[in-house]
């Protein structure tokens, strides 16, 4: 499978990465080179093979559902690019 320029733009948007028109052609070439490389997996017969879900067999641990951390808005917000009144601030989302 190879991608066309419209797909490159769609994937860039899904990835939430702005790309300029100049970059699209270049990215198309690079993405197609990588996709051509992974294409060889088609040669492998995977009939009846279970997909890997856990590389080392382990049981997911359970813990009591209690609050065990938090309550420190100051530290949580310390690296925020914009914060107001103890909250992260973003452009208006709902009109």
């Amino acid at each position, binding site marked *: 499978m190879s991608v066309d320029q419209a797909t490159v733009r769609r*994937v860039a948007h899904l990835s939430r*990465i702005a790309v300029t028109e100049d970059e699209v052609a270049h990215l198309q070439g690079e993405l197609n080179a*990588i*996709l051509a490389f*992974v294409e060889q*997996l088609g040669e492998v017969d995977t009939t009846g093979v279970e997909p890997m879900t856990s590389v080392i067999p382990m049981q997911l641990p359970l813990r009591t559902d209690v609050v065990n951390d938090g309550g420190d808005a100051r530290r949580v917000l310390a*690296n925020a690019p914009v914060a107001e009144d103890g909250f992260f601030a973003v452009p*208006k989302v709902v009109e």
Partner: protein
Amino acid sequence: MTELTRLTVTAAREGLAQGHFTATELTQAYLDAIAPAGDLNAYVLATPDKALEMAKASDERIAKGEAGPLEGIPLGIKDMFATNGVRTTACSNIIKNFVPPYESTVTSQLWRDGAVLLGKLNQDEFAMGSSNESSAFGPAVNPWRRNGSAQPLVPGGSSGGSAAAVAAHICAAAAGTDTGGSIRQPAAFTGTVGIKPTYGRCSRWGIIAYASSLDQAGPIARSVNDAALLLRSMAGHDPKDSTSANLPVPDYEAAVGASVKGKRIGIPREYRVDGMSAEIARLWDKGADMLRDAGAEVVEISLPHTKYALPAYYIVALAEASSNLARYDGVRYGERVPGRDIVEMYEKTRAAGFGDEVRRRIMIGTYVLSAGYYDAYYLKAQKVRTLIKRDFEIAFAEGIDAVLAPATPSAAFGIGEKSSGDPVEMYLQDVFTVTLNMAGLPGIAVPAGLSSEGLPLGLQLIGRPFGEEGLFSLAQVIEEAAGRFEIAERWWE
């Protein structure tokens, strides 16, 4: 190089215990070695004040007879590990001013055991690369050069700054991370020892995530014994990482020097890839001889799905990366570029903050997970992954204790040599290392010889799950037979 920075961790520990020198003197010697080593670009942040403060505390504990296993040992830390109050960037512009208010579990265990932080080490951006060239701080430079040449070489990647710093004796050892070969390939390129432990052996909590089902932390050091010492402190169960293994941590140092008599070592015929240099092939044979001389039995084995590990890796890792890196959106941390609305803000923030390789990987990951392609790519790759792991399980069930393979297809290459044009050319660097990450197995890279051009070459030993002790015993045999490799000319000073 001073007498103090020449010492291995093992020897420095002895000297500190005997009172031959203080932790402060040892730390100062490293700080004095870091200062003129700017040309290596190994450190992205040196923390001299913190280092001296920690060394002073170490000296006090030594005086009181309360020394930890790594008391007073000055370490460099890859910039993937969150360090409390110390800038942590993953060498990306998108979090170039991030100061974590918490400490990763692995580094907190190093400090618990008395180690001293010298600073944060260069790497490929978000650990995505095999040459350290994708770092937002510019490439780290290999302290090794070809005979009679001043051409700058890559130290490998992604833990390139870590390997360069250890080889150049500007830290006693380093903590790195390995997702597809990022500890072992740079170790091989710099004549150092690096181990990627079994998936789950070290906690991933507080390590910046690249591909969560593959990422593992491990040490880079100047000797097998040093690596064993460090891993003992780094490993262990952590309730904050649900994939960390709840198993006791063995005394790895006790395994160094243990007999390998009767161990069965597999040589996988599929690793004899097209285009393998004659030099690497000879080194591999030599390594088999070293193990045979020590009493191990060397047999040819087959790992038939080897060839598919790399393409499957590039689907699994990139899919996980696209998901993990969604968090860099300019809201909770990192740099923000304003936009008309929130989507434009995200898009501009991420376009400005991510470098080319990271952008490429996120886009591929997004594509293979997108509607209509998930089964063809991601599900297929996870099935191939099952087959790759099964290859090893069959070999181990047939009595193989460990697998011997080259660590890299070549010696270190020049900066810029592989960074233009086809991204796949760089990906092939990981051909011998990536299978283990896919199978969750431990692997150690150990220097085994020099190329005709005078560059270090490494071999890799691959073990059973949680078989790190066996790997240390085998690696020690190679280290003893091959010797250790030091840089003759310290051109950067």
